[in-house]
């Protein structure tokens, strides 16, 4: 790893964390996988700058990130389409571009979506914790969220030379529909609860985070009262606490949870769930 500090953080926005594919194999010790909340966007950003699969990117929440390059860098930004400025010039997303030494990179607020990914050729360099550079906000593992004034180094996690000029990408959907399969505790709910979940629009709550997307809308009623002994959680699990308001677990989900899981969002749709903005409506469909 190269320890030269090449990137200065001028502003971190709401929350910017370092993320990679996550940590594997520690769930039995109480440590979840973590990793980029929108894995497809993270992978694309790495591909655009020719990084190895395991390279780390920056996950910026609702733009607001400002960086200064202290070396010539190759950069690509994917995910929520935040306007990108190099100095005063606007730069397109989903395409690699040069960020010369001394230049300032700025992400505005995305018009749709929530999380943008900034890949730098070589990957973000910091010491991995249990094999990953991902920040797990629930477990408090991995590099702390970015702070203004800190410097980041660039690693050497490159693969081939970058060859893609621009990647065609669908912008995050304004009216997303998440495909869902029944979960292990579907039978803890009344029969109408499942059809309510599939026929209603739910509003994304502002207290959503990397752990999960909290939703508000028609309550999902339980048939089986009582407590569920804690059981393992998977990404995309839709847990229903006593309030009846569903919660879709994302990358930093707890390893186990004590509320019944009514359904599981398809893995391919988790990036869409991670891009839900507070106040945005979302629907579910049986896959």
């Amino acid at each position, binding site marked *: 790893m190269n320890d030269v500090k090449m990137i200065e953080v001028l502003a971190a926005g709401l929350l910017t964390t370092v993320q990679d594919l996550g940590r594997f*194999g520690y769930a039995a010790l*109480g440590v979840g996988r973590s990793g980029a909340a929108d894995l497809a966007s993270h992978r694309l950003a790495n591909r655009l700058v020719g990084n190895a699969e395991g390279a780390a990117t920056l996950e910026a929440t609702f733009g607001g990130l400002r960086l200064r390059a202290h070396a010539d860098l190759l950069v690509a930004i994917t995910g929520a389409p935040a306007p990108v400025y190099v100095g005063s010039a606007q730069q397109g997303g989903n395409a690699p571009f040069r960020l010369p030494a001394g230049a300032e990179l700025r992400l505005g607020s995305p018009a749709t979506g929530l999380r943008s990914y900034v890949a730098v050729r070589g990957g973000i360099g910091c010491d991995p914790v*249990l094999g990953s550079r991902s920040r797990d906000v629930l477990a408090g593992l991995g590099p702390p969220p970015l702070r203004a004034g800190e410097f980041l180094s660039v690693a050497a996690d490159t693969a081939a030379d970058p060859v893609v000029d621009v990647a065609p990408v669908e912008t995050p959907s304004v009216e997303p529909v998440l495909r869902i399969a029944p979960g292990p505790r579907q039978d803890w709910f009344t029969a109408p609860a499942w059809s309510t979940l599939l026929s209603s629009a739910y509003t994304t709550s502002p207290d959503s985070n990397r752990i999960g997307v909290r939703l508000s809308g028609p309550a999902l009623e339980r048939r089986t009262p009582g407590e569920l002994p*804690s059981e*393992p959680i*998977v990404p995309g699990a839709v847990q229903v606490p006593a309030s009846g308001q569903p919660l879709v677990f994302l990358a930093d989900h707890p*390893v*186990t949870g004590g509320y019944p899981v009514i359904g599981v969002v398809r*893995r391919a749709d988790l990036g869409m769930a991670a891009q839900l903005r507070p106040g945005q409506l979302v629907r579910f469909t049986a896959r």
Partner: protein
Amino acid sequence: MRVWEYGEDALLVELADVAAVVALRAGLERDPVAGIEEMVPAARTVLLRLAPDADATHVMALVQRRSLSAAEPEPGAVVEIPVTYDGDDLDEVAGLTGLSVDDIVAAHTGADLTVAFCGFAPGFGYLVGLPESLHVPRRREPRTKVPAGAVGLAAEFTGVYPRESPGGWQLIGRTAAVLWDADQDPPALLRPGITVRFRPA
């Protein structure tokens, strides 16, 4: 035993009690079923994460044939944890159990305990094997702050808080043992299946 598919690449196995969880997990560790990449035990359930090419139906059938009789303890894997028994809830536990503080210490240090599963926080192991005389409900009002190293009781479990956190277990003591260090490999002192003995510090 009931088994469901859980998402696209996992099975969830539901068992009668935590003893069966311990037995199934230990059996699958000793004699693995091909296609299971990771096991995550919990209180009544075990998550089996499958390899991408695994045949879920086949794995399910093999798992359902497994014996759930008591597991042999893992040879050699005994962790001793020294405890100073001066927890804030000792009197409460004495009241709930009808035991003296000396009896509580004797019962807690006299048992061979097994890590059934981990959760709540990295490195927090749920230990089973306590005598029933030490089964107490969790506190009605959880504490907002429990110090690292606090030793607690809740229902059939005992455990040690690996770091400062909120918590609702009845605290009977504290240990200086390091339960979690992310810079170490393995990072956790406790993992499912190992045997633990507490002793007076």
